[in-house]
C-alpha cells in the first residue's frame, strides 16, 4: 500500500529519527564532485505547486534530481488551473502521466490529504505546505538543523515567535519537536495564536523577553500579510518592538543558542538585519539542509518496493473518517 507524508504527526519517534539519520547521510553528497545518487532512477516526481514558493519548490526539485528521479514542475500560474481546472482533474492528469510521487503545495488546508485519500492517484503524496495547516518537511529540516547544532533534542527548549495563527511551519514544528522530546514555547500576541492552541503539546506566552534566556533555539516566523484579512496588531512598528528579534534581545540568549527563520524574511519586521546576518543565524544553512531532508523523505517513500516509514499516512485517514457514524 502506498503511503504519504501529510502531517508531522504521521511520524513516530523512530520514523522521525530515521529521516534525520538518512538526511545526515544525504548531506555528505553536497561535498562530492558528482552530486548524484541512483536511488530513484526511473521514478517520476511531480512538483504540484498551487501557491507561490521559491525555496521549497527548488529544494524538492534539487532533492529529486540528486536522487536521479525525473522531475515535472507544475505551477498553477500558466497552467490549466487558471482556466478553472479542478484539483481532481489535475490529479487525474498526473496519474495518467505515471507520477510515482506528488509533492503538493496548496493554499487550501487539507488539499494534500484529499489528494492522498481520494483514490485519484496511486503515487505517494508529500505535503509541501497546505494553507495554514502543515508543512512537515520544513519541520524535519528545522529539527535536522537544530540536531546538528545542539545534539539530540530531548529536553531542549525551542521558542517559536510570531504569526502562529497563519503558520503551518509552527504547527508542524510543534508536533515534530514534541515527538522528538523538545519543549516548545509559542510566543505571539493573543490575536495571532490559533483557537485550541492549549491542546497543542507546547507552552504559550504573550511576551518574548521571558523565554529567551532559557532557549536553545529561537525560530522567528514571518508575518503573513497575504493571509491577514483583519487587524491583528495595531502597527508594524509596535509588533516589531514587542515580538521582533533585535540585537539586544539576541544578547539575552544563552551562548550556544541558534536563531532560525523558515523564510522568506521580512527584515526589520520580525527579525532585524543585524540578527539575520549574525553568526548565530543558521537561516542559510536551513535552506541547504532542506535539500538533504527532502532527499531522505523521497528516498524512504519512493526508494524501495514500499516505504520505509511505517506509520505514515494511516493515522490521518483514521481521524478524518471518524465522523462517518454521523448520518449525512
Amino acid at each position, binding site marked *: 500500500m502506498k503511503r504519504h507524508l501529510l502531517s508531522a504527526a504521521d511520524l513516530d519517534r523512530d520514523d522521525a529519527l530515521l529521516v534525520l539519520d538518512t538526511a545526515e547521510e544525504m548531506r555528505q553528497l553536497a561535498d562530492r564532485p558528482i552530486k548524484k545518487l541512483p536511488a530513484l532512477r526511473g521514478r517520476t516526481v511531480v512538483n504540484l505547486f498551487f501557491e507561490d514558493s521559491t525555496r521549497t519548490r527548488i529544494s524538492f526539485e534539487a532533492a529529486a534530481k540528486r536522487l536521479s528521479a525525473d522531475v515535472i514542475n507544475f505551477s498553477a500560474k500558466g497552467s490549466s488551473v487558471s482556466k478553472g481546472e479542478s484539483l481532481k482533474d489535475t490529479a487525474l492528469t498526473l496519474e495518467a502521466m505515471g507520477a510515482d510521487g506528488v509533492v503538493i503545495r496548496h493554499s487550501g488546508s487539507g488539499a494534500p490529504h484529499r489528494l492522498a485519500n481520494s483514490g485519484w492517484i496511486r503515487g505517494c503524496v508529500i505535503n509541501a505546505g497546505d494553507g495554514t495547516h502543515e508543512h512537515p518537511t520544513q519541520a524535519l529540516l528545522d529539527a535536522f538543523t537544530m540536531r546538528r547544532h545542539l545534539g539530540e533534542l530531548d529536553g531542549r527548549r525551542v521558542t517559536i515567535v510570531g504569526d502562529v495563527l497563519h503558520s503551518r511551519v509552527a504547527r508542524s514544528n510543534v508536533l515534530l519537536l514534541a515527538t522528538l522530546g523538545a519543549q516548545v514555547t509559542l510566543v505571539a500576541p493573543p490575536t495571532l495564536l490559533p483557537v485550541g492552541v492549549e491542546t497543542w503539546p507546547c507552552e504559550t506566552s504573550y511576551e518574548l523577553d521571558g523565554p529567551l534566556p532559557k532557549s536553545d533555539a529561537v525560530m522567528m516566523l514571518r508575518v503573513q500579510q497575504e493571509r491577514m484579512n483583519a487587524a491583528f496588531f495595531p502597527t508594524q512598528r509596535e509588533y516589531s518592538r514587542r515580538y521582533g528579534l533585535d540585537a539586544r534581545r539576541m544578547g539575552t540568549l544563552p551562548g550556544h543558542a541558534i536563531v532560525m527563520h523558515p523564510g522568506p524574511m521580512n527584515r526589520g519586521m520580525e527579525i532585524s538585519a543585524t540578527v539575520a546576518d549574525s553568526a548565530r543565524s543558521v537561516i542559510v544553512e536551513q535552506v541547504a539542509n532542506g535539500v538533504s531532508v527532502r532527499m531522505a523523505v523521497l528516498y524512504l517513500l519512493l526508494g524501495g*518496493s514500499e516505504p520505509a516509514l511505517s506509520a505514515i499516512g494511516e493515522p490521518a485517514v483514521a481521524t478524518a473518517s471518524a465522523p462517518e457514524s454521523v448520518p449525512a
Partner: protein
Amino acid sequence: MTPASNPNPSTWDPLNRRPVDRQPGDHHRARGQDPATTRSVLDRADVGRALTRIAHEILERNKGPADLLLLGIPSRGVPLARRLAARIADVESAVPVGALDVTMYRDDLRLRPARPLEPTDIPAGGIDDQVVVLVDDVLYSGRTIRAALDAIGDLGRPRAVQLAVLVDRGHRELPIRADFVGKNLPTSQLEIVRVHLDEVDGDDAVLIESPAVASGAGGRSERDTR
C-alpha cells in the same frame, strides 16, 4: 520470506536468489533457528591469521602502503577494513581507512522495502589516483561489489580498485573476483555463511548453517547472501 513459507526450493522465483544482505537485524533474526545445524569454519585465531596474511598480501602486491586506501562495506566490512589498516600500520605505516555504503546502488533496491542507509565515510583526501582496496566479509553473488564499483565511480577515479574478502563462498552471478581472500569456502546455496566479528557480534568466527533436511523442509533463509 521465512524458510518455512517456501517448502519447495525448486519453484523459487529467481528474483529471490538475489543477494539480500545488509539488512540490519537479518543476521540475528535467523540466529538460533532450530532446524539448522551450525558448524564453525574459522575460529578467532583463524580469523586473526587470515587478516594478518591479507594485510601482508596487500602490501606485497602494492609494494608498500603508498597511495593505499581501505574502504569497508557496511556493516562487517568496516571493522574488517579497520583491522587490516591496523595490521598494515604495524608492519609499515598508517593508511587511510573509510566506509562505503552501497545501498542506493544495489540492483535489488526496488525489490524490497526502502532500507535505511549505513554510514559512508570517505577519508579527507578523496579517492582520486589512490589504490582503493574494498573490504567485505563474504563474497557470494558479486552484486554487492558491482554496486560498490558504481558507487566508487561517483566518488572519483581511483588508480586501481582491489577487493579483499574474509570468505569467498563461490556462486558468482557476475564476472567479479577477489584479489585477497581469507578463506575459500565451497558451499551449497542452501547453506548460510555467517561472519561474526567482535565489533558487531561480540565474537570472532565464521559459521556455516545448513538446513536440517537438506533437500526440502528447511528451505533457504532469506539471508543467503552474496
